[in-house]
Structure formats: structure tokens, C-alpha cells
């Protein structure tokens, strides 16, 4: 089932007439290859099991072979067992300890590569927290979320290119652009049923990508915009991986804090009511349309913020960073992490970025494993790995 066999059906299909012995051998070999492949492709069950086997084998091989993964210290990602004493700490103290630990992490991780992977993980955590407003809290299925990220990234890229605006000044504008895009998509489709909304947003995501790819005059087409400025703070240019790590961490923390506050507020309860039963919520006086639009705008806002940081980190944006697959990836972070729970979705985001990095080199197979993980997670752990806990009513009985 390797790449060597891949050409055999085509070779045989061309039906080259050649009477020499060597050609006979070759044809026999091709036929054999075709039969083997057909066995794999034509029997659905073997096909699915086979792909599972490929994914598992590739992962295991990659983990135990000392080749490509040697630059990653084995065991450095071991999950830490939570001691009993941590559980008894005050939540605010716990949060502070976690924040200090995360801030100091670049000092502990001396390898540039590890810091960069974590930065990417934090960027995606911001995205996942943003999508959590829409999917996790409000229960609207949006499949084109990456379009808002793209809009934020291009907003900063264009502002920087044409007006020379730095990241910190452009950040609010990029967030505004993302939020407006969220409203723009949300406004006409609020009355649609769940899966129709999914399709409209999917179509929106595709349209944004195709337009970015073809509108040469503004977006420079498939090449994208290059030479975007890195941020600078009081004349001090932030270029080191650690600086980006801390920026991304701050962004994630703000996004996280905002969301956990909002969940506990009246708005958060309204979102949950809509998610559980829209009709009942409407009858209880929840302004359904307003709340849904607010969720869309909040989602777009954080995607825009993450997009701007992404653009300045890469100094280059192009449409190929914003494919449908990225939307699916963020959705998976939310769903697998635990819908509605900001801790869950952040952990989901960081692990979905970090885990594949551990299996680097098996790069081609990780999508296969990813797809299987989605199917299996839906089958065996639908509510995600860190599901949202219900809020307790204040003074309830």
C-alpha cells in the first residue's frame, strides 16, 4: 500500500502494447499491484480498518524511532499529575500561579522550536475561545470560522502596508473588522435552522478565500501580502519567539478572562438557554436574535485579534492559511476540548497543535489519525474531554 504501487493502475490503464518479456513482467507486476490496491479500496471495512492501522503504525513508528523526533526531548511533554494540595487552593490563587507559570515557560523551555509551537497553540486557543462563544455557548454551528481570522489578518496586513499602522494601534481595528464580519454573516441568517446556518457560513468561508485568492489588486492573489511589520513597543521591536509567546499568552488570557466572566453573567445564561432550547428561551423573554448576533460578533472579534497577531508573527499572509480544513480544526478543538468550557477549549487547542508536532515526520498520516479521532470521539466521548459544568444557581436549594 505504499507510494510505489500508486502508479500501477494508471500504467495498466494506459494499456501500452509491448511484446518484450520485460514488459510482460512489468504488466504482471502492475496487475498484482492493482489487485492489492483494489483489495484495500474496494472493501470498505478493510479500508477503514486499514487506514486506522496505517495511522496507528505511523504514529508508533514515529514515536519509537529516534530519527526525526530526536530534537524533542522524550518525556518533556509528560502530563503532570495534579497533587491534592492544588485542588484545595483558592481559585484566584490557582489562576495566578498558572499565569506566572505560563509566563515563565519561555525561560524554562530553552528550545526556540518548543516556544514557537506553544505560541501557535496559544493563537489557536484564542480562536477556539472565540468559536466557543458561537458553537459552545450559543449552540450555533459555524463552519467558516477561519474567514474571520483571515479578515483580521488581512485587515492588519493592509493597514500596515498602506498606512504604516503598527500592531498595537491596528489591533482594535482588526478586532472590529472581525466583529463586523461576524455581524454581517449573522444578520441575514438568524432565522435559519442549525445545519443551514452551518452551510451558509461554510459558503461564506469559501467565498472569502476565493476572493482573497483572486482579487489581485488588493490582496495580491495567491502570493499574499509580504513584509508585514513586526510589532514594536515604545521603540523596542518585539522579534524574539519569547516576546511573541508572551503576546499570544496575554491575548489568550484576556480572551479567556472575558469569556469566563461573560459565562457567569446574564448574557452567558441567555446563550446557554438559547443553546438548550431556543423556543423556550424566547418565551422566557430572552432576546434571541440580539444574543445570537452578540455571540457571532464576539466570535469574530477574537478571531480578528488572533488574525492580526498571526499576520505580524508570520510577516506574510496568503489565502492558503485559511482553508476549510482550518475551520474544521478549530471546530474540533472546541468539540473535543469540551464545548462551552473555556478551559476545555484552550486545552483542546493547545493539545491539537502540540500532539501532531510530537508525531512530526508522520505528517502525512496525522490528518488520517485526526479524522479517525473525530469519529471515535463522537462515538465515545461526545461532550468533549473537559465538558462544561453547569452553573449553580446562587442561593439555590
Amino acid at each position, binding site marked *: *500500500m505504499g507510494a510505489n504501487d500508486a502508479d500501477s493502475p494508471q500504467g495498466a490503464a494506459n494499456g501500452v502494447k509491448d511484446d518484450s518479456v520485460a514488459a510482460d513482467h512489468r504488466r504482471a507486476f502492475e496487475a498484482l499491484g492493482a489487485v492489492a490496491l483494489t483489495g484495500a479500496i474496494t472493501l470498505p471495512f478493510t479500508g477503514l480498518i486499514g487506514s486506522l492501522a496505517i495511522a496507528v503504525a505511523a504514529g508508533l513508528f514515529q514515536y519509537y524511532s529516534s530519527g526525526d523526533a530526536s530534537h524533542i526531548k522524550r518525556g518533556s511533554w509528560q502530563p503532570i499529575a495534579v497533587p491534592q494540595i492544588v485542588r484545595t487552593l483558592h481559585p484566584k490563587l490557582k489562576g495566578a500561579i498558572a499565569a506566572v507559570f505560563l509566563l515563565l515557560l519561555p525561560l524554562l523551555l530553552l528550545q526556540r522550536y518548543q516556544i514557537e509551537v506553544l505560541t501557535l497553540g496559544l493563537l489557536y486557543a484564542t480562536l477556539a475561545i472565540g468559536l466557543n462563544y458561537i458553537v459552545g455557548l450559543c449552540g450555533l454551528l459555524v463552519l467558516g470560522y477561519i474567514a474571520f481570522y483571515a479578515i483580521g489578518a488581512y485587515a492588519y496586513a493592509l493597514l500596515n502596508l498602506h498606512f504604516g499602522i503598527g500592531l498595537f494601534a491596528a489591533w482594535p481595528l482588526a478586532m472590529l473588522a472581525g466583529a463586523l464580519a461576524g455581524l454581517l454573516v449573522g444578520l441575514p441568517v438568524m432565522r435559519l435552522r442549525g445545519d443551514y446556518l*452551518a452551510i451558509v457560513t461554510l459558503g461564506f468561508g469559501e467565498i472569502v478565500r476565493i476572493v482573497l485568492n483572486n482579487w489581485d489588486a488588493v490582496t495580491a492573489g495567491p502570493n499574499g501580502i509580504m513584509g508585514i511589520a513586526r510589532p514594536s513597543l515604545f521603540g523596542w521591536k518585539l522579534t524574539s519567539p519569547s516576546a511573541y509567546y508572551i503576546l499570544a499568552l496575554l491575548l489568550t488570557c484576556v480572551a479567556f478572562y472575558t469569556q469566563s466572566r461573560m459565562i457567569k453573567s446574564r448574557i452567558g445564561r441567555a446563550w446557554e438557554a438559547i443553546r438548550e432550547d431556543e423556543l423556550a428561551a424566547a418565551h422566557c423573554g430572552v432576546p434571541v436574535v440580539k444574543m445570537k448576533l452578540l455571540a457571532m460578533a464576539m466570535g469574530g472579534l477574537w478571531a480578528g485579534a488572533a488574525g492580526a497577531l498571526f499576520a505580524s508573527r508570520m510577516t506574510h499572509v496568503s489565502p492558503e492559511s485559511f482553508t476549510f480544513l482550518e475551520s*474544521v480544526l478549530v471546530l474540533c478543538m472546541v468539540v473535543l476540548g469540551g464545548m462551552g468550557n473555556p478551559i476545555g477549549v484552550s486545552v483542546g487547542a493547545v493539545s491539537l497543535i502540540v500532539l501532531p508536532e510530537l508525531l512530526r515526520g508522520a505528517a502525512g498520516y496525522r490528518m488520517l489519525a485526526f479524522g479517525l479521532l473525530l469519529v471515535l470521539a463522537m462515538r465515545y466521548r461526545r461532550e468533549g474531554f473537559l465538558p462544561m459544568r453547569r452553573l449553580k444557581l446562587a442561593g439555590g436549594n
Partner: protein
Amino acid sequence: MFLQQLINGITLGCVYALIALGYTMVYGILQLINFAHGEIYMLGAYLGVIGLALLQAIHFAPSSPLVLVLTLALFAALIAALWGITIERLAYRPLRGAGRLAPLIAALGISIVLQNFVMHSQGAREKIFPALWAGSGYIFGNTRVSAVQLLIIITSAVMMVGLTLLVQKTRIGTAMRATAQDRVMAQLCGIDANMIIAITFAIGSALAGIAGVLIAAYYGMINFYIGYQAGLKAFAAAVLGGIGTIPGAMLGGLLLGLVEAFGAGYLSSQYKDVYAFLILILFLIFRPGGLLGEQLAEKV
């Protein structure tokens, strides 16, 4: 120019319609958007290439290319139907009654798995499907209808008439319609709903498999990611016609093919993928039931 685009549009539309039928039938019964359906179509195209290689390996060389393509289509339809049943059994049936989000995400997962599985087992490069009717065709004025286009249009028409008869006239069709209307009631009347759902998946997947073989013969070149775009567009076609209705899927497919062909011919071919989505979005906003669908209010 106009006639040529019309012919191209109808050809493309027939293929979209064949795929859209699978979406609409599954949606009609399960209210599930079967995202993996586009990948079944992609598998169908690969099965066409593999089938050709197999036929040559056993030295079976039919005299006319027509018989050859129909044999391949039959082969692809059978295998694709098996895939459809397997996917339903393994990924969707366990999630029945688990809301809408879970099966949709499982479908996305299956779609990713199939794409990557085919990429790894068949190679990432494009596969060639040999031209069977080199240079032949019928020329009316300055419009050329190739033999493959004719084949696609006729095959699709036959398939659609056959499906309509199956759904309207046979016992299985009656059972399918009953299950779509009210699954519990149908079960109480002695219909094996699981069996009917499996049959629905099998029929839809078989049609998509045939569409795959036809498109391989039409374009002469296939790759592992053709299923994504075609699947989305076919879904758009199903919604356009009114999802859940079988004539709607056919009409929607044809319309979408025509829009794409004329849009590419007269406006700009760079944006040809945008037209389909734009029409889809406009339809969903202003007439969410589609052309032939019922305008349903949200169920309580």
C-alpha cells in the same frame, strides 16, 4: 458560444444532480448532512481507474467503449454502495438521536479519513483516465457535443427516471417515503427502518460512484481532493432544489451546472466557484425551503 455553454452546463449539472440525489435522500430520512458523500464520488472516480486496470489485467477488452464505461460504472456503483453502507453502520448509526452536531462532525471526520486514505494508498499525483472516444462527437453549427457528454446526459437521465420509479412505484420506495415522513410510525407498521436507511445510503452512494466514473471519463484526470468541491456544490444543488425532495435535487443540480457554465463563460472563470455559493446563500436567506421544498417552520 451560448449553445456550447448550455451543453457544458447541462453535462456538469447532470453530474451534480447525481451526487445531490444522495445528499437529499439521506437528509430526507435522517436530517443529516452527509459530508462524506462527496468523498464517495471521489472514490467512484478512483474505482473507475482501478476497474479499468483490473479489466486489462484479466484481458477483458469490450468492443465498444460504451460497454466498457457502463461496466466500470456498475463496478463503481457496487463498491461505492458497500462503502456507503459501511460508513452508515460504523459512523452514523451509533450517533442516531445524539443531536445534530455529533453526526455532522463524525461525517467531517469520515470525509477527512477517506481523502487521506485515498491519498496514501493511491498517491497524491493525478491519475489519468484514458480518452475512450478520441475526437469523436456531434457537431451542430459551431457547437460540439462530445460522446462523453452525451453519455453523461443519457446515463443521468436514465438513473433519475429509474430512481423516481423506484421511489414512487415499488414497495421499497414506499417504505423509504414512510421512513422519511415518520420513522417511529413506519417502524410500528413493520418497516425495518435500519434496513431502509442502509438501502438509502447504498442507492445514494451508488449514484455518486457512477457520477465519479462519468466525470473521470469526462475530464480524463482525477485526484484525491475532487470530492470536496463537488460535494459542496452538489449539496448546494440539493438545497437549491429543496433538500429532501428528489425532483428538487435534479432541478437544483441542473440549475447549478448551468449557472456555473454561464458564469464561467460570460463573467469570469476565476470566480466560477463563488457563483454556486452565492446562489446557495441567497436561496437560504430568502427561500430556505428551496425551489420545490416545503416552506417549513421550525418544529417545536
